[in-house]
């Protein structure tokens, strides 16, 4: 697989590991946040962390749209499907996310709600065209990477005059989240020395929006690809910046990211969406101007307006450390629920649901390094 296999090469990996070991200064540590769950997943799946010297530490960030979605939004989606009897379409990632009362979209489906897993917004349109008498709602979620496909679907629905399509919009913006984490760094927050930036997001928005990070917070950023060599090279690039006292946005993922990003996609997003005044991020709280909703000209396609539901305010699971983990303050094993009862089969928090969540990645790939690795406390 071109552009994939080359970036998983074992020999290059060993050499990069040696370079990192050689260049990382023993007298200090390097606390590097991988913002993105894709990086977290790659780090655990390929065992990247075991190739690092002990003073180079990866801190998991909030870069998983599933993990940061508040429970109340899933509640709302379930109510939408059951009370309004619509066909609710969504990506597979959301199907097992816990809602209130141990509900999930999957369980709602098993009990009879018409919930479909789709692979593309085009599928939702196909479903809507095939059953004009049914209302089809697309439960949209994702960062800037996943937002433009939703925009295309909305524009297509408008152009074709599909009256039975609407969107339950949960698209969020990465820069505000990053800014919040950095702003709360400090005594009760997390100390970060560098950021591995979300490169698929930058494919769309470019690298420029991250300039604010070195400028305002004095922390270097490397826009990093998702293959393991990408992660390792980016790590070394951050170490070199730190060692040399530089502080800037560098782009490791030059093969797909430019400073400007994809202007066509940006224009489509600007046409269809507007920024919400504020939006709740799980773990980070309510962040201003951190999410999108449909622009006024497309408000008739907004499922929240078309099918109003009232979801009771939800409480997060007691004892779940997701909020702290998403801000990089804690690691999965700090959580008392990790492994018992919280496992991917019975996730208590969203970090255990998405395979990109820090808890799930650690559980699935990394827990054998723990002293009592099964972590079951029932025996």
């Amino acid at each position, binding site marked *: 697989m071109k552009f994939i296999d080359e970036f998983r090469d074992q020999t290059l990996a060993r050499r990069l590991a040696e370079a990192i070991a050689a260049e990382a200064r023993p007298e200090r540590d390097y606390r590097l946040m991988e913002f*993105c769950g894709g990086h977290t997943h790659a780090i655990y799946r390929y065992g990247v962390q075991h190739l690092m010297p002990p003073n180079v530490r990866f801190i998991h960030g909030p870069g998983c749209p599933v993990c940061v979605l508040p429970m109340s939004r899933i509640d709302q989606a379930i109510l939408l499907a059951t009370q309004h009897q619509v066909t609710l379409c969504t990506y597979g990632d959301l199907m097992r996310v816990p809602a209130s009362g141990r509900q999930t979209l999957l369980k709602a489906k098993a009990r009879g709600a018409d919930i479909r897993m789709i692979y*593309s917004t085009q599928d939702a349109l196909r479903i809507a065209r095939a059953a004009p008498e049914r209302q089809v709602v697309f439960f949209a979620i994702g960062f800037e990477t996943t937002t433009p496909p939703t925009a295309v679907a909305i524009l297509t629905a408008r152009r074709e005059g599909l009256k039975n399509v609407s969107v339950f919009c949960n698209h969020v913006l990465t820069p505000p989240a990053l800014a919040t984490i950095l702003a709360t760094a400090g005594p009760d927050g997390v100390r970060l020395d560098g950021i591995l930036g979300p490169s698929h997001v930058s494919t769309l928005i470019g690298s420029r929006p991250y300039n604010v990070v070195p400028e305002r917070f004095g922390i270097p950023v490397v826009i990093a*690809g*998702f293959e393991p060599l990408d992660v390792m090279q980016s790590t070394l690039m951050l170490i070199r910046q730190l060692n040399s006292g530089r502080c800037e946005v560098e782009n490791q993922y030059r093969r797909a990211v430019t400073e400007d990003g994809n202007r066509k996609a940006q224009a489509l997003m600007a046409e269809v969406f507007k920024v919400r005044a504020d939006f709740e991020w799980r773990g980070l709280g309510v962040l201003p101007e951190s999410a999108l909703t449909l622009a006024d000209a497309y408000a008739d396609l907004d499922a929240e307006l078309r099918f109003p539901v009232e979801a009771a305010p939800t409480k997060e699971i007691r004892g779940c450390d997701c909020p702290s983990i998403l801000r990089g303050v804690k690691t999965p094993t700090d959580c008392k629920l990790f492994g018992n009862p919280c496992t991917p089969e019975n996730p208590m928090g969203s970090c255990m649901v998405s395979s990109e969540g820090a808890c799930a990645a650690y559980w699935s790939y990394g827990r054998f390094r723990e002293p009592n690795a099964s972590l079951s406390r029932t025996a």
Partner: protein
Amino acid sequence: MCLAIPARITAVHSTSDTATVALDGVSKEISLALVEDAKVGDYVLVHVGYALNTISEEEAARTLAMIAEMGALASTDDTP
């Protein structure tokens, strides 16, 4: 969630603004609605059925060369 895979365009269907892409013997229809001027032979980054961007072969080669170079520095004094 942001899983995106590089694949090669083997056919462009201009009326529907879609393309067929191939990845090692697997082919798939995707939308070109988000990219401009993608043509057969180009590699695009595929995400939820859409091409997000084209991939630059030169930049990829350059990155790999740089990785090799960065590693070479360390491994000069390394006899495995």
